């Protein structure tokens, strides 16, 4: 098994925010709430820790207040360490401005990468929900002699989804021979999970070269344009995953967790997904509560009817309220006799008594953080 103490993890907190603009208006992609008690960063961060990676940098751009609040010093992921541990890497200096792409983001943190005591770097975005062991991937990278290893998954996507993805052609020897960036096409494809393994020096050289040529897109300027100058390998991840590429995938991925096999695969008890602890009391069901096919976090108080819903921590559903096909984020309060279907509420939303709110499956109602309806 790979020695992971020489692997540095880097998580890009702000990539893909344009795919879910409602959810990322006030927060980084990495702190988008998911699965009743998690935020998206919990998945790459926990996966890295479970794979014995001991040092992780989180690269942020803007809107990172809630992210900092969430990860703190990294205690919950056991990343509050004497050596290594968690490093938050907010934008630095004033000569660059806000970065335009992954290569520029990496250029901003070049001193951090240089100083890191590592040989390999695992880059990951925060748009994929999966339980991934990175150890065999790092082994694969070393054994194949690759310059860059791209982790990919196979799935069927429509044109709108593909317009957010990087699509790979991989031959029988696992070499990537073609890269399409955000093509508008539909069908079954190998899609990049936006996780890459690369040697430290190789990455530093790429960054330096890109800086001198004013290039900033890793996908276009490196994977696509330099594909034939390097050895780029694909590692197929064949366990369940969700890649957030729009609000409809976001809803489907949340709801998919009602499936026990999927839930067991993603929240494997041998490689648990950690998150910030809130010390809520267990969920309380009152008289008249009726809950079907739903995921409920601690701290909820339910006195109404809940069907096909995902309720985050501290959600209150009043007496006689009926909610169906909803995702209600932390501390949403639904008043008595209110009725809702196909609604997403952001944190701290109050829905008044007797209110009716309904969206449709393809066009859900989204209620902003802190709003009173």
């Amino acid at each position, binding site marked *: 098994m790979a020695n992971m103490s020489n692997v540095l993890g880097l998580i890009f907190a702000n990539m893909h925010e344009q795919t879910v603009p409602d959810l990322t208006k006030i927060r980084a992609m990495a702190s988008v709430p998911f699965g009743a008690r998690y935020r998206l960063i919990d998945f790459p961060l926990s996966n890295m820790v479970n794979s014995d990676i001991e040092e992780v940098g989180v690269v942020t751009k803007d809107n990172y207040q809630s992210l900092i609040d969430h990860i703190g010093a990294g205690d919950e992921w056991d990343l509050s360490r004497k050596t290594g541990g968690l490093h938050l890497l907010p934008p630095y200096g004033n000569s660059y401005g806000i970065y335009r792409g992954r290569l520029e983001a990496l250029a901003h943190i070049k001193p951090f990468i240089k100083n890191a005591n590592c040989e390999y770097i695992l880059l990951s975005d925060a748009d994929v929900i999966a339980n991934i062991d990175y150890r065999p991937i790092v082994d694969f990278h070393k054994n194949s002699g690759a310059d860059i290893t791209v982790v990919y998954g196979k799935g069927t996507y429509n044109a709108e989804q593909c317009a957010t993805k990087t699509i790979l052609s991989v031959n029988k020897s696992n070499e990537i021979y073609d890269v399409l960036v955000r093509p508008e096409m539909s069908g079954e494809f190998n899609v990049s999970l936006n996780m890459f393994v690369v040697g430290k020096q190789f990455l530093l050289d790429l960054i330096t070269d890109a800086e001198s040529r004013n290039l900033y897109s890793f996908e276009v300027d490196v994977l696509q344009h330099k594909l034939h100058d390097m050895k780029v390998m694909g590692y197929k991840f064949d366990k369940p995953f969700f890649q957030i590429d729009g609000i409809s995938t976001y809803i489907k991925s949340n709801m998919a967790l009602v499936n026990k096999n999927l839930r067991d695969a993603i929240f494997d008890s041998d490689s648990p997904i*950690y998150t910030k602890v809130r*010390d809520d*009391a*267990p969920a309380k*069901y009152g008289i008249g509560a009726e809950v*079907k096919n739903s995921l409920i976090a601690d701290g909820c108080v339910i006195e109404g009817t809940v069907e096909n819903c995902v309720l985050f921590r501290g959600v209150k559903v009043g007496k006689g309220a009926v909610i169906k096909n909803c995702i209600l984020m932390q501390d949403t309060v639904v008043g008595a006799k209110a009725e809702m279907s196909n609604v997403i509420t952001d944190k701290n939303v109050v829905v008044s008594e007797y209110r009716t709110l309904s969206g449709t499956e393809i066009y859900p109602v989204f209620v902003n953080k802190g709003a009173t309806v």
Partner: protein
Amino acid sequence: MKHVKKECVAMLLAGGQGSRLYALTKDMAKPAVPFGGKYRIIDFPLSNCVNSGIDTVGVLTQYQPLVLNEYIGNGHPWGLDRVHGGVHVLPPYESSSGKSWYTGTANAIYQNISFIDRYNPEYIAVLSGDHIYKMDYNAMLDFHKKNNADATIAVLEVPWEEASRFGIMTADENGVITEFAEKPAEPKSNLASMGVYIFSWQNLKKHLIANENDEGASKDFGKNIIPAMLGEGNKLVAYHFEGYWKDVGTIDSLWEANMDLLDPNVPLDLHDHNWRIFSRNPVMPPHYASEKATIENSMISEGCTIDGFVDFSVLFAGVVIEEGAVVRDSIIMPNTTIKKGAVVEYAIIGEDCVIGEGAHIGERPEAIEDKDTWGVAVLGHSVTVSDKAVIGPKAMISENV
């Protein structure tokens, strides 16, 4: 090492066996017994300390300390991993003068005088590790200082008919304690000690040393230290506590205290964010209630999967209730599985148990004619009950059936 002075250090008595909880305390000390869906009993006094601004806590352990030690760890879940102070587990130890177990509550504190003296405190709080309540010890400390007392004892008014089960204080109109009686047959008052004491440290230390040197003494706060203080004319005052408080030392009281959490009229609000009860949180996904689940009047923790019927029950993390299983008026501790068609009524089921398909545990009191034979059925931890087995009311099971 230089220790920063602390005004008040808390000493938490957590060494008791809890023999009246039988199977539940076979492998763990009473304060480590799971309570209320995600807690262990000790979370209540520990959280009270933190919420009261007491950041230095000694936890005195003796009986079966493994689970408790592991649970407390470095104190991080309670914010008690501190540079100065924090939580310290204090087991009995061997010294140059010999070795000895903690022979009584007073002896346990006596053996840790040097731990307390490191922080040079003015006051110490002595707390029991087996009560469920929310209390601001800081308000009690203010009361102690204002009264210029040598000792302050928290008291609760109990119904007169129950008074003989408690340590009973008699106090004058100023709240000064004039008499103390441990479980008196004919109580003169209904002010019961809650097992929460604040002492001015130097005076208590003097009494602990004297008590230790008295060979006939039983080294106990209630039996020796409090009477000795009264005898010497020390000022002991009663601090009236109003609110929910429950000793969970018996099966019935443990069951009742859990059920109290389901009663909206019981004043113990676990959802109050201003006085959180902290605990070591399980790392598990949200709980799932399926298409076939029916759940009412219950507390359900993360990691549970429910396909069956649950009413008036408390389910801890990772409990699985399979299709057609019925759980009523029961407490199911972490990671236990209730298989298809099993019925669990008026029962406490320990951690990591498996109740086989169609098994029947416990019985409703209405279904029993001779009420003396009825009681809560108890399964200890890691017990497997085979399919279709029947375990009657009041049973106490710690081996596979």
